[in-house]
Every structure is written in structure tokens, then in C-alpha cells.
């Protein structure tokens, strides 16, 4: 049996990527022909513009603004928003394919759980890259209009954001696999994101409250310690946290920091996508 597999492995790998690429093309075309992705990118850029305008107003008021990378924060906001939305879309896409039966039709052909999920994954990653081009054009235009300094670090930052998007999209796919139906998958997605994000925000709020206060009960101190511990743990598993740490490395040209966190994000992405595939294979296309 092993010999039988070995002789087919090269063809199997070829067939795997061929099928995955076909699925990817279908998915990305379907998304590109709908308004949602453009709206999401627009909203992200709108938020970025608000931040930039804030800096402009500060410059007008204080007659001075000093920054290494004034575009970093606006770009972080827009790419984070876009990546999060693509993760939601990937989650809905996988669930809907299963719900409406089109996945079963695919599986009758040379598509299995792994090729399907991988195809969805690279499909949304491709869309992210395409939207990233628009964001890059925006960054260039804005730089030219405002006379901002444009550095190669912005390109590095945008390219690195692809990993964050990859991790988030893989996470979205995993929630779809765990949840089954589209609504359940979305509940999984948002509950996990809100809990993780909420803990980090709560940690900051409680720390600020305690710093401002003259006294605190043991329970508040326990809460602060618990949140601090949870928050530092979340930093390791959150693609967003890892990406911001990478950005610190880019901004300060500390490339060791950059590559360490890049490696962590790669591991996160691989774990999420492989985990999703394994669970999907166990559950089957019919759930």
C-alpha cells in the first residue's frame, strides 16, 4: 500500500495544488465581484484618514509634528480592519458552502477537505494582496499630497501585514470548521475575538484605574494580576499583537525582533490552517 501511495504522491501533490488554485480563483472572483470588500477597504482607509487628519490638526495647532513613520498607525488601522473582515468573510464562505451543498458537489470531484480549505485560504489571501495594492496607492497619494516622507519601511510593513492577514483568515476558516453553520461560526469568531481583545483592553483599563487610585482592594489587585498574566499570554497567540511587535522591529530597524515575530506568526498561521484541515477531515463535509 505504501508503494502504491509513493508512486502517486507526485501526481497527488500536483492535483492538490491544481484543485486548490481552481477553488481559489472561484472564491476570489466571487468576492471581487461583490461590493463588500471595497466597502471594507474604504472604511479602513477612512479610519486611517481620520488618524492622519488628527496629526495634521496637531501640526496646525502646535506648528510642529515629529515622527519616524507617520503612516504606520493609519496603515495599521486599515490593514487590521481589512484582515479582520476577510477573516469573517472566509468563515462565512466556508460555512455557506457547506450549508448550501456546493461543497459536496466539489468533493465529488478532485477536491477534498484539505484542497478546499487551502483554496479558500489562498483565495482570500490573494484578495488581501489586491486590496493592499489599493492601500499602497493610497499611501503614495497621501504622501505626495501632504509631503510626507515615504520610506521603504512602509513597503516592508505592508508586506509583513500579509502574514497577519494569513493568520486571521486561517482563524476565520477554523471557526467555520468548528461552528458548522454560518451563524454559529460567526458567533465563535466574534466571541473569541471579543474575549481576547476584551481581556487586553480590560488589562489596560484596570492598570490605569489602579495607577490613578490611592488605594485598592485585594480583589482589584488580584484582578489586575490575572488580567496582566492573561494579556501577556494572549500577546503570544494574537496575530495582531505579533504584527505590532514586528512593526516595532521595522520602525527601529531591529531585524532580530522582526524575524522572531515573523516566525511566530508563521507558526500561528500553519497551526491554524493545519488544525482547521484536520478537524474538517474528521467532521466530514456533511458535518
Amino acid at each position, binding site marked *: *500500500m505504501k508503494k*502504491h*501511495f509513493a508512486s*502517486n504522491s507526485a*501526481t*497527488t501533490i500536483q*492535483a*492538490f495544488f*491544481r*484543485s486548490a488554485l*481552481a477553488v481559489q*480563483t*472561484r472564491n476570489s*472572483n*466571487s468576492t471581487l*465581484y*461583490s461590493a463588500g470588500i471595497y466597502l471594507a477597504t474604504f472604511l479602513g482607509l477612512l479610519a486611517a484618514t481620520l488618524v492622519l487628519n488628527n496629526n495634521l490638526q496637531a501640526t496646525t495647532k502646535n506648528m510642529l509634528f515629529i515622527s519616524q513613520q507617520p503612516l504606520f498607525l493609519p496603515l495599521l488601522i486599515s490593514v487590521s480592519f481589512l484582515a479582520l473582515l476577510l477573516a469573517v468573510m472566509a468563515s462565512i464562505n466556508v460555512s455557506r458552502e457547506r450549508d*448550501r*451543498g*456546493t461543497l*459536496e*458537489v*466539489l*468533493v*465529488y*470531484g*478532485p*477536491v*477534498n477537505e484539505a484542497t478546499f480549505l487551502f483554496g479558500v485560504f489562498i483565495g482570500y489571501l490573494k484578495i488581501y494582496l489586491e486590496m493592499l495594492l489599493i492601500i499602497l496607492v493610497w499611501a503614495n497619494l497621501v504622501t505626495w499630497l501632504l509631503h510626507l516622507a515615504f520610506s521603504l519601511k512602509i513597503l516592508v510593513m505592508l508586506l509583513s501585514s500579509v502574514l497577519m492577514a494569513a493568520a486571521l483568515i486561517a482563524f476565520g476558516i477554523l471557526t467555520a470548521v468548528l461552528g458548522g453553520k454560518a451563524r454559529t461560526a460567526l458567533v465563535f469568531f466574534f466571541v473569541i475575538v471579543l474575549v481576547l481583545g476584551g481581556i487586553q483592553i480590560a488589562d489596560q483599563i484596570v492598570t490605569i484605574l489602579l495607577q490613578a487610585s490611592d488605594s485598592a482592594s485585594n480583589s482589584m489587585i488580584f484582578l489586575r494580576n490575572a488580567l496582566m498574566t492573561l494579556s501577556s499570554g494572549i500577546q503570544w497567540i494574537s496575530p495582531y499583537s505579533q504584527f505590532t511587535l514586528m512593526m516595532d522591529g521595522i520602525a527601529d530597524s531591529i531585524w532580530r525582533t522582526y524575524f522572531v515575530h515573523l516566525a511566530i506568526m508563521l507558526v500561528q498561521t500553519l497551526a491554524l490552517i493545519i488544525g482547521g484541515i484536520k478537524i474538517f477531515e474528521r467532521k*466530514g*463535509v*456533511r458535518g
Partner: protein
Amino acid sequence: MIEINELTKTFGSHTAVDHLNLKIQPGEIYGFLGPNGAGKTTTLMMIMGVLKPDGGEARLFGKRMFEDPFGIRNQIGMVAESLNFYDEMTALEYLQFFARLYQVPEPQKRIQELLEKMNLWQWHDVLVGGYSTGMRRKLGVIRGLLHSPRLLILDEPVSGLDPFGIVQIRQLLLEEKARGTTILISSHILSEVERTADRVCIIAKGRLVVEDSMDRIRQDAAGKRQIEIEMVNQVAGLLPALQALPFVTGVASRNEQTLIIDTLADREYRADLGIELAARGVVLQGMKALEASLEEAFITLTESYVEDLKQDRLGGKEQE
């Protein structure tokens, strides 16, 4: 082509497929029939590798699915009963997607050829979401045939089609058979199965009831052969005389000139009957053997299973 050995699948306490054994020969059209809940779709899902069997195995082209899933599936065209499509794609885009998946050579030519055969080419740039049920059914069949598979599996291929559509599908299937394609059809439209299938199997409650050629099933299920005679003249006392013949089991009169005579099913009795009629002075205008319908055979063979199923369900409800 397809070998199913002791295939079994249970869902909880319910056995959907129970030690099923089938063999489908290359190049034949094989009817796969059974009442609702017989286990047909479950069996097809296990053949396709979508469901994992709890016992037994299914082999396609001599291999089990997991041994070469991509290689095997590339040779199968599956047309499921449910009409699930990507409604946001045009028919052309939809077929191009599958053509790419199956690596169809000259895909544009093949797609156009099939769409034209099904009178769908003029709608090729319409979103599938706008297609009628019959058009979607045809599109599903086209998708199944796109890559010229060695094995075509169809689950209710003509459901929802108008007579023209049914004829088109039938012609297509016969063309595929002439090409050497093995075809497995599961359908409730028995007349269509009757017209096209070489062999048929009937399953009920997950078990094989019968598997044989069409003729044998019809005849064996009926338990008799029927001969229709058309007489030129009427002869008094003919009916009781015919009734008394040892090979005649029943006589019915359709009208003054036409009689339906039931004979034993062990052999052909038209010659014997002809001699008896001539001896009694009957001048025949015509004599022909009547074929039992597949529908009648189906009902005969499965009605007890359907009753059992009803009783099981009622019994289950009482227990609740």
C-alpha cells in the same frame, strides 16, 4: 467497474445500508432503485467517499477511494439530486471552473458542445441563479459529463425536466453508453430507467432485494406471462375452454375481440395457445406477449419492505 462488498452504514441505532453487495460491469447502464429511505443516497455517498462506511468496502476501477482519491474522482462524473450551484456565476463560468478542476482538454469547445446539446448555449452568459429548475438539472448533467468520465453516477437526473429535456438526457446517456461509459442511475421515474437500463437492482431497508436484467425482474416479479389475442370471430364457450387449459392461469376480456390470457411463467406458451385456438375455430388477427412493467415489479418487490418500514416507524412512535 464498481464492486461493493458487505457495505454497511449505521446512523445511531438505524442501519441505513446493511451488508450490501453489488457489482456493476463496465459499459452497462445500471438502474439503482429503491423506495424512499432505502439507503440509495447513503450508498452513493459511500461509493463517492463522502461518507465513511462502518463496514465493508466499495471499490471503483479496482481501487478503494482512499488509495487514489484524486485519480478515481477524476474518472467519475457525479450528478446529485440536489441542485446546488454557485448562483453568482454564469453557466459558462461555472462549467469553466469544473473544467479547470478536471483538467478538461479544449474546455471551451467541450462546454459549448454540451450546452448546445442541451439547448442551453443561448443562456451561457446568464447567472445560474436565474436558471429554472429544469435548466439547473441539465446544467448538473453537463457538469457530470464535462470531463468524459469512465463512470457516470446520476441521482434523479430527469426530475423536473419537461419531456424534451428527458429525451435529451436519455439520448445523451445512450451516446455515453455507446462511448463505453458505465452509468449508474438512481431514479424514481421508473419508465426512464426501464427505457435505458441494462440491469437494475432494487434495495429496500438497506438490503439488496433483487439484482438482475430488466426482463427477468419484470417477469419474475409478475410471476406470470401475459398474451394478448385479437380475434376476428367470436366463438361461444371460448373463455371457459381457455381457462381449462393447464398452462393458463387466467383469462380476461378487454373487449369483444380482445382477450388477455395469463400463462405460467416457466416458458413461452404462444405456440400452444395458437394450436388450441385454431382447434376451436378461432381466427386470429393478432397475438402478442405483454411485458410486465418495471413499476409493477418494483411495487411487488418492495411493498412488504415499505409496510415493514411503516410498522417500524409506528412502533418507534408508540415506544416514544
